[in-house]
């Protein structure tokens, strides 16, 4: 059996839209890698996960690392690639020309036009971070999870309060 790719999953019922994930993402993608340093950087680091807060639903949105990534097909510069082994969709910033085609075509709105550097910014699963994705480790309510789909199902089923929360909403 081929191993399932590991992705970041969200449980919308547990999301309080506190936006801790956004901050942690920006810090993780800053040069100084510290909160205090990051807020003083020029240009400011961009977060690549955005919390959509609605009246009935909160949802942190980031790159889904799609099986058939629209952004990959749309990129005229050939900057987007999909890693067949890990399932990860990457943007090569060297090649990115900032045409924003990926931004427009992404059905999740998960590619962010980083106007300050003129390149597309998106979730890189914090590849080089030992503790795993910063958004996941920063989430206070356990609404974010990093793992395979199977692992996520198991995780989801063991969350306390989830049933009550669902009924409540």
């Amino acid at each position, binding site marked *: 059996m081929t191993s399932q790719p590991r992705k970041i999953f969200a449980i919308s019922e547990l999301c309080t839209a506190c936006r801790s994930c956004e901050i*942690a993402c920006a810090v993780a993608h800053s040069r100084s890698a510290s909160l*205090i340093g990051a807020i003083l950087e020029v240009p*400011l680091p*961009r977060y690549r996960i955005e919390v959509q807060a609605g009246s009935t639903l909160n949802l942190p949105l980031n790159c889904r690392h799609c099986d058939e990534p629209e952004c990959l097909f749309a990129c005229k510069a050939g900057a987007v690639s999909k890693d067949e082994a890990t399932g990860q969709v990457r943007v090569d910033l060297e090649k990115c020309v900032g045409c924003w085609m990926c931004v427009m075509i992404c059905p999740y709105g998960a590619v962010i036009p980083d106007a*300050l550097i003129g390149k597309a910014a998106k979730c890189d699963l914090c590849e080089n971070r030992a503790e795993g994705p910063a958004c996941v480790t920063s989430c206070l309510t356990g609404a974010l999870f990093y793992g395979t789909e199977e692992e996520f199902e198991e995780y989801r089923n063991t969350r306390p309060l989830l049933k009550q929360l669902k009924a409540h909403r």
Partner: protein
Amino acid sequence: MSQHPISSDPATVKAHQHAREQNLTTVWERHEAVKPICAFGDLGLCCTICYMGPCRIDPFSAEEIRGACGAGRDTISARNFTRAVAAGTAAHSDHARGICHTLIETGQGKAQGYRVMDLDKLKRVADEHGLKTADVSFADLAVRLGQRLLENFGQSEGSVSFLKRAPKGQQERWERAGVLPRAIDREVVECLHRTHEGVDAEYRSLILQAVRCALADGWGGSMIATELQDVIFGSPRPIRSRVNLGILKKDQVNVVVHGHEPVLSEMLGVAAREPQMLEYARSKGAEGINLSGICCTANEILMRQGFPVAGNFLQQELAISTGAIEMMVVDVQCVMPGLQQMASHFHTKLITTSDKARIPGIEHVPFNEHEALDCARSILKNAADNFVRRNQASVDIPEEVMDLVAGFTAENTFHHLGGTFRSTYRPLNDAIMSGRLRGVVGVVGCNNVRVQHDYNHKTLVEELLRNDVLVVETGCAAIACAKEGWMRPEAAREIAGKGLQEICEVVGIPPVLHMGSCVDNSRILIACTEMVREGGIGEDLSQLPVAAAAVEAMSEKAVAIGLYAVASGITTFFSPAPRVLGSPAVYEYLTQGIEKDFGAHWVFEADPHEVARGIIAHLDQKRTALKLEPMKYQQPLARTA
């Protein structure tokens, strides 16, 4: 120094391990459980003031984000900062108000067991306030001084009375900036009013009000508390004692006082030495009564009566987890509600005594000054009764214990320097001018679970001592360094630079001077003022080669102290930083712009080695400006980590 993640104090590490083995939860585990710390709050960018919000300003947004009311990041963080200062000032000053009442009731003969111990100081402070001291009984004078100082809280005219003690130059600066505090309560109220939704939105105007409030703490509430505590309980004199968890005794009734106000603990001190109380403890199978303290109550009974110190802020729960404490008596400030959960696993009785502070699930024994001594006796009896319930087999007291000398004040320290017959600051100023001492630095403040316990205090102080800096300390910082042994006179030989060593040996003082509790930071203001008055090292506090540091700051009181130190002309190194880092404008003002207004600034630096380097550079810069002689014994600059 130990690299254990939670503490650099071996007794704390051991006690914590022991607590974990028993599956007990402490501040460290709770802190892990609430992580990650909210970044908006940490940066001061979360506004919870009105009920349209909470509004949070995204620090990574390229556009300018504002709260619902239109308040931007500068307004929001300045308001948060101002409220912290107001709370800190309120804490110190409410404590002082209580002491004023105690003095009045002592004079009226209504406070059982108390008497005015320092008649000289009573007369001196009364004179200073223009009260007639001739042909007046001390009892009447006590009443009138108490009443006069109480006026500082609510007077509708004039300004806080001890401000006149400050050097002229600084008073003029305050007047120019329009920050002379009028009345203590008024400044706290005005901070709350201005930070209410839709009032003051200009960050500088808010911070100047915070300054006015902080001055009402340092030269108001805190100073009143210190002075009147000296009057009632006696001014401290150098006194030997012991510190750390190892002072708890396996064969005695251990009673620990914790909190801040010395009013009850002083009486517990009296009762604990009464023969009939000791007899009662023996009748319960104990060898005696061992009274000790934690946090600033510890510092108070240490300074005046020489009772030992069980530990500082982060050791409060661990003291109970030794299983050896019969009774912990708490009042106000820095008392963790978590004590209740810890005490519930042991025979330890925890009681709250202040009307202002209760803890769910804890017995409240209201303390009544009119029957203070009876109240103290009954608490000790209760503790002795509890001794028989102790499970001696499970008692685990870390053996660490250290000697110390405490009890230094602005008045008596330099008795030492000048000798009994010519009490003067001249020798101190001379030592600085001749380059034996680089300067004097106050290392004060709390413990903070975000920082390895005691590590910053000890790392910083060690480097200062090696570089011929005389260190004065209060609060939990003082307890940290006492545990390390730096409050023994012999420590000078072991650790101090050559110049500091010479001074300590000639005068017979330890290289780190314990000046008391956190309200006693006012003693440091007075000591600095005396240095100016003595002459030769600057016309104003801002010119002196001095600095302050709070490198494990935790409470709002610490923020108020930091601000009054800066506003008094003493540059202050502070970490973790107060919640202003999210506003570039507020940050810039506090770390630079404020220098123009008050002659000093804040430095927010987390690495204690960097703090040491910064302080040494700061002292050297002041020395150069004063054209003082070069340091007599050149020390290598602060070592790197």
